[in-house]
């Protein structure tokens, strides 16, 4: 796996260019790309400080978010409103400033010339969209992206190129595209046309199923994990996940050894489900 050099992590203060709703529970936070922000690779993330009243520390820990898109001018994050912090980020007005550092973590490997099947569940679409359609260094035709959500209202589709060229959709309730979850859709796709690797990002249960599928088919699977983070620099050991790897400790950090892991080394049953 590519070795991530923390030298790319700098603290930046930037401005919110836009903050708008994408779907029932998702919104897009567009940040001005600050000078010196290193070109991110797909799967890397930024560690964002949630603004609060001066002198207050309502949100003490930063929040990690994958890079959904990045141009010369902006960095896009797609955020789902789950708790108080993401709700506070939803309230930031255009023009207000935000502190963050990054890009951080190990990206998805760039498998040149290989056929990669991407599985994005919910907000997990972000890094896989960036990987396939926006990152400066990306695969060409070899890449197929499947995107699933619970229901139609949860999908966010603007800017997302759709089939035949682009993304294939699935909803659990069949309200849009394939009826079923994205891993079931993946089985159908693989039957249609095989792939050399699976990339996944989404709920732990979904990635676990993706791992089982990849193992059955006998191809590698790279998953982007989530975990609660302190430093996001590999220093505090807060964000570890259990692996089958040798060494002093079976644990590896999501922030520094991940977030993208070779799925075959993870102890899937023991993963924390935040």
């Amino acid at each position, binding site marked *: 796996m590519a070795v991530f050099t923390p030298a790319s*992590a700098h603290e930046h203060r930037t401005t919110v260019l836009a903050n708008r709703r994408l779907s029932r529970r998702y919104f897009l936070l567009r940040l001005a790309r600050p000078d010196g922000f290193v070109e991110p690779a797909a799967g890397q993330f930024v560690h964002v400080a949630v603004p609060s009243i001066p002198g207050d520390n309502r949100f*003490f820990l930063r929040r990690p978010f994958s890079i959904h898109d990045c141009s010369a001018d902006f960095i896009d994050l797609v955020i789902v409103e789950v708790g108080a912090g993401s709700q506070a980020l939803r309230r930031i007005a255009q023009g207000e400033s935000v502190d963050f550092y990054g890009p951080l973590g190990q990206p998805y490997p760039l498998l040149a010339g290989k056929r990669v099947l991407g599985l994005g569940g919910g907000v997990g679409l972000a890094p896989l969209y960036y990987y396939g359609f926006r990152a400066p260094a990306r695969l060409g035709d070899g890449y197929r992206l499947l995107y699933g959500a619970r229901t139609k209202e949860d999908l966010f589709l603007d800017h997302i190129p759709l089939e035949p060229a682009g993304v294939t959709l699935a909803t659990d309730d069949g309200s849009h595209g394939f009826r079923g979850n994205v891993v079931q859709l993946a089985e159908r796709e693989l039957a249609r046309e095989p792939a050399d690797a699976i990339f996944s990002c989404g709920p732990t249960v979904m990635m676990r199923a993706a791992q089982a599928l990849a193992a059955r088919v006998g191809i590698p699977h790279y998953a982007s994990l989530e975990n*609660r983070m302190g430093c996001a620099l590999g220093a505090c050991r807060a964000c570890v996940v259990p692996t089958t790897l040798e060494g002093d400790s079976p644990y590896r950090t999501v922030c520094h050894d991940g977030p993208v892991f070779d799925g075959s080394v993870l102890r899937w049953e023991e993963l924390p489900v935040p």
Partner: protein
Amino acid sequence: MTDISVQIGPVRFKNPVFIASGICGYAEEYSPLVNLSRLGGVVTKTITMRPRAGNLPPRIHELPHGMLNSIGLENVGLDRYVADKLPQLNQRPDVGVMVSVAAETEDEFIRLAEAFAARDGYAGLELNLSCPNVRGEALDQGRNPQLVERIARIVKDRIPDKSLWIKVTPNITSVADVARAAEQGGADAIAAINTVIGIDFDLATGRPVFARGSAGYSGPAILPIALQKVWECAKAVKIPIVGIGGIASIEDVRKFFLAGATAVQVGTVLYNDPGLPERIITALEQNPQWVTARALPA
């Protein structure tokens, strides 16, 4: 530029602002965000004789005014630390490194002390006698003054020209007794405080948020507690006190000096605001009188 260097035992540190143990790992990890050579020094993650895997995740939990952690002293162990980590910093003599160590027996402390006595490239040792996140009392000698005195002497005898700090837990009846014992044993400073023991529950699961139940509480919420322990220690001993706990602003640092601290360690706030230590140092350089101000008649 004003001199705000501080003398702690045999060692002079360029200023009184450190990063607390466990916050920035072995220091190098934070170099992209913090100019390490600007600091008074960095305290490493606690090292133990053998490597430790640490506790089951999840390991941290956010609270409105701080956080709980249950890391469990995950560390690479003495051998790999001196083989891999210490040399990294040896290449940076401008960084003052206090190595935090913990051990289960007095014999282990002897071996740790001798291992470090044989090496250089660090400023001193901080003994963590008070980690709330490990099972049993083996690693919790901080409750027992007699033991603290013996351990301090064991270590100090072997590193006479290094700075020896004893880190105390707030989770006891009298930190003053422990501070006096450490002073008796020859410690050069008292580092106060480690995390406050706390717990939280997940209403969805009906269980504690951490596998081990109780955990360590840190952040702004514990500032008044930390200040009080420093105040208590300052009245009990003559050796310097290094104030730790809840620092989130320059005002907080000034309060530690008023309480009687000679230096401070910045902890959890680093996750929120990694630029703070350097801003504190600049403010102290501009207002050196803050460093020496005391609420107690010295």
